[in-house]
């Protein structure tokens, strides 16, 4: 899969790497067991700090999208739940973009949106237990 990083984007590079791989899984371009370059190799190819790549990979691992292999890089290891999440995140990106762009045009501060999301999460997750 081709992964593109845009240095002029406002989105942090680690998020771009993470989103690129999530999108790859969601679109079926990345399958379980597909290899991913090691943190060092990817950092070198992109010319970005190793911490940045590390951050992206840790995030992907914690979200259940990849497995880190000591000294051999990483591989895609997304279970069904993770694949569904990938599909959701990829699809939700657009509706979220619409929502945020409306918020931006109405001069709603980002912290207000953050707070709204946190409250919703608390409410809904509270109901679950």
């Amino acid at each position, binding site marked *: 899969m081709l*992964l593109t990083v845009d*240095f002029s984007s406002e989105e942090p590079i680690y998020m771009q790497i993470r989103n690129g791989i999530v999108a*790859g899984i969601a679109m079926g371009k*990345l399958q379980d067991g597909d290899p991913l*370059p090691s943190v*060092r190799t*990817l*950092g070198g190819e992109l010319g970005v700090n190793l911490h940045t790549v590390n951050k992206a990979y840790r995030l992907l691992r914690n979200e259940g999208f990849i497995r880190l292999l000591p000294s051999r*890089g990483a591989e895609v290891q997304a279970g069904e739940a993770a694949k569904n999440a990938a599909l959701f995140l990829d699809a939700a990106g657009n509706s979220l973009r619409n929502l945020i762009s409306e918020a931006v045009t109405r001069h709603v501060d980002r912290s207000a949106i953050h707070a709204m999301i946190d409250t919703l999460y608390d409410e809904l997750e509270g109901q679950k237990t």
Partner: protein
Amino acid sequence: MRGLYLTFALVYLLTAFLVLLQPWLTRKNVLFGVVFGSSDVWSDKDAVRIRRRYLLEAGAGALGIGIAAAVYFLLCRPSAGDAAVYFTAAVFAAIAAETVAFVAGNRRSKRLKSSREKDRNLVTDKITVETSVSEKEAVVSAAWLLLLLPVPVVTLALTLWGYDFLPDLLPTHYGFSGADAWTPKSWGTALMPVILQVGIGLLMLVCAYFTRRAPASVRGNPEAAPGSIRYRRFMVLTLILLGIVTELTFLIVTVGFFRSVPAICFNLSLVLCLALTVLIFVFYYRFVRVRKPSGPIFDDDAKWVLGMFYFSPSDPSLFVEKRSGIGYTVNFARPGAWAIMILIAAVVVSSILLSKG
């Protein structure tokens, strides 16, 4: 003396020629370290003119210094020790003259680039990489580096076991016709080949280790530098092989302490090294030089100071492919790279000093 002068002349000509060749040993969309969007620029009228001017300036510089040195040597006939010093100075002067001409070429190429309409293939803010290349395909396994170990171990074992059987005088220098200098037996002299093996082996090991991941000199997308992974694998393995051949040469020196070895053994290793060098050129031409780049190319001229020195603080790579010339260079923005440069200088200087002593 005539043999010495002949060696000097050959080494001078070869070095000056290889350095002179640098602007031709690049991908075809790179002119004096300046990257362009397509390889069409190589045959561009102005680009040809810049290269021709470089050839004239650098060639005249190297030739002038060479002639001056030759005249001095023939008229003043310095002693062998002095001659070595003047010869080294002449080689460095030639490299410096050619480098100055290269920098001028770099400036002219930049001017050519800015005078042109902006190439649509050149991007300044995006890099695309292929993620499905596995670590195993992309990076030579570090296990290959272990091949550098056995020869020094055997040489050390041979020296320790055989020290008592060594003659009182040890042959320590070989000319074209065999041993031509001897040194009284001592542990220092007997162990010298092992010490040099360890120094050179260590240097090769460090260089090969970091070259394993060295990125291509032109980036942007996987097709911006076609063949770079295969070329890198080849170069790492060649470096290890070169290290082993050098180590074997010193093993022969140690064997020479016990019984006389024919000079042909040393010539053989020299021939082997030359053959490897030729192989590197062929491989470079076949898998790098003739391949055409395509897709978006990352415009990172600012990171290539004077078109030669790579300086990128954000890039974690210690080694990168050279922009001009065959091989790899260091990322000068990384302290580790400076440490390696110092190691290389230390090994080269101490082997010169030790082999003189």
